[in-house]
């Protein structure tokens, strides 16, 4: 499935399809034509994806064929043992977690699953967790702390679910508790935003020592549509809002919010999931190896300092105003 702004790509793909159909029909030799069209296609994809606007990036991050949690589990981990329940109320289906092995590292893995089929999407509540999900994640992180193994968190959610029962059971409390506990968790936490980093719902499992981002993923304080509806009084102005909010990985790296961008294959993660998994796994493993060498004291001091620095008021710079 191609997105709106991929019209030029779609056209070349259509040409290739037509050529192949023709060759099948009349047996004509189209090998060299095909080859040049293929090259043209690759070049065009590369061009389009190198010039993505923030709003186009949002669309890629939400692409229906973009790899989701279950794909990363299969693609990056040699073992995954899913564990369930918050030991309090339920077992949220939007938030998946368990023991997992990546490279030589045994860890606790947590992350949002959006589901692929319609049934799965509904079951997973489109990746929007309820409080029970955040509490399950916290329980598993505390287990990681007891076992002294690191936490790997994969973030891909439009938002924490804004539902009645979510409020009743304390969506705000659940996220706040996670932020507080993750700040002091005594094992390394490596976070990767793989798709949508949707506001507090994402942050609820995204406090970490290293925060990585796939190159076409986004991370935002509010969905661009929501921001446009409030500040532009027109949800259709989402592209402007996306631009203004600086939701893309390069902007976030520049602002010091994330530590690394994981380069996606040409044309986005959905065009080559295998290569995406390889790159992501390699980035996570490197981070784990590095973080595991730190003492607990150093790890926690560094994590705290990382967040204390974000938006820190610099008296030398600002006192001249």
């Amino acid at each position, binding site marked *: 499935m191609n997105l709106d702004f991929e019209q030029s790509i779609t056209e070349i793909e259509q040409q290739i399809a037509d050529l192949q159909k023709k060759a099948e029909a009349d047996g004509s030799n189209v090998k060299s034509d095909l080859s040049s069209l293929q090259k043209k296609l690759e070049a065009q994809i590369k061009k389009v994806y190198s010039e993505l606007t923030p709003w186009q990036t949002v669309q890629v991050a939400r692409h229906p064929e973009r790899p989701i949690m279950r794909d990363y589990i299969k693609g990056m981990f040699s073992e995954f043992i899913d564990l369930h329940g918050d030991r309090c109320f339920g077992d949220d289906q939007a938030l998946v977690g368990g023991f997992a092995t990546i490279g030589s590292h045994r860890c606790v893995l947590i992350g949002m699953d959006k589901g692929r089929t319609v049934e799965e999407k509904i079951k997973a509540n489109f990746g929007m967790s309820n409080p029970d999900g955040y509490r399950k994640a916290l329980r598993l992180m505390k287990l990681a702390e007891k076992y002294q193994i690191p936490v790997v968190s994969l973030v891909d959610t439009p938002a*924490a*679910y*804004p*539902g*009645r029962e*979510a*409020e*009743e*059971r*304390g*969506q*705000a*409390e659940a*996220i*706040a*508790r996670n*932020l*507080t*506990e*993750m*700040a*002091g968790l005594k094992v390394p936490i490596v976070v990767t935003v793989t798709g949508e980093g949707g*506001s*507090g719902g994402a*942050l*609820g499992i995204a*406090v970490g020592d290293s925060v990585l981002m796939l190159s076409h993923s986004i*991370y*935002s*304080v*509010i969905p661009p549509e929501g*921001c446009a509806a*409030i*500040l*532009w*009084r*027109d949800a259709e*102005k989402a592209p*402007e*809002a996306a631009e*203004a*909010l*600086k*939701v893309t990985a390069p902007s*976030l790296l520049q*602002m010091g*919010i994330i530590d690394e961008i994981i380069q996606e294959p040409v044309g986005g993660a959905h065009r080559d999931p295998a290569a995406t998994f390889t790159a992501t796994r390699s980035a996570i493993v490197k981070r784990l190896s590095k973080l595991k060498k730190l003492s607990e004291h150093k790890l926690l001091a560094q*994590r*705290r300092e990382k*967040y*204390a620095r*974000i*938006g*820190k*008021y610099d*008296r030398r710079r*600002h*006192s001249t*105003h």
Partner: protein
Amino acid sequence: MGWFRRSRKKQTQPVEQVDLWTICPSCKAHIYKEEWAKALMVCAKCGFHDKLTCHERVACTVDEKSFRELDRDIKPRDHLKFSDAKSRYADKAKETTEELGINEAILTGRATLNGIPIVLGVMDFRFIGGSLSSGVGDKIYLASDYALRHKRPLILFSASGGARMQEGIVSLMQMAKTCAGISRLNKAGIPYISVLTNPTFGGVSASYAMVGDLNIAEPGALIGFAGRRVIEQTIKQTLPPDFQTAEYLLAHGFVDRIVPRSEMKDLLAKVLCYGRRGKPPCKP
């Protein structure tokens, strides 16, 4: 209590006679302004707790003349060079600062409360909806740091619509930053009391405001994660009238007590006496 007399100039009506009265936003009762201020902006008729400015809140919370502001110089910074359809964030922040005479949506400082040394943070909803900006986050983190170093309890009064979206992701990260500050207080055993006032939502309720040793709320305060309208649109149902009120949160286990404004100071003093960790006990 100078702040109570000086404040609310903006609400002055052109007709002189009206100036003596104020109208309760909840029950529409007419009440003498002087009485209204004396009752700390609480309606004598219906008990409605109106919003307070940060200076009013400080005045009715800590011992007179004990408040010393911290980090006053911290002001909004335009990390994103943000502008929307109407205006630039930098301009809006500057205007707000000048209009209100405060630099950010929170005032922090040290003070004493019935003689007990504390660190206090008070949000001001007038400042861009009390939104959580990098300045607010920084001031809270620094306040928690001061509390940690001086072993003073921290009390934060929240009043906020949520994160300040004009500061984008930098604003979101202040949730993690403020909670990291609270995490340190927890490990060190320093008391942290969160007081939730009307309204407390989004990035503020989902961070420091909800993880107090005690979460105390003012009567009727609206407190939640998502806004009522967003939820109604999502679930396509009308929500009950008491949804997200302080009373509703108490019933659902997220608030320790609902405390009327007139009793807040004494209640805070009382509970602080339980977190002294070996220091001489409070006076009874």
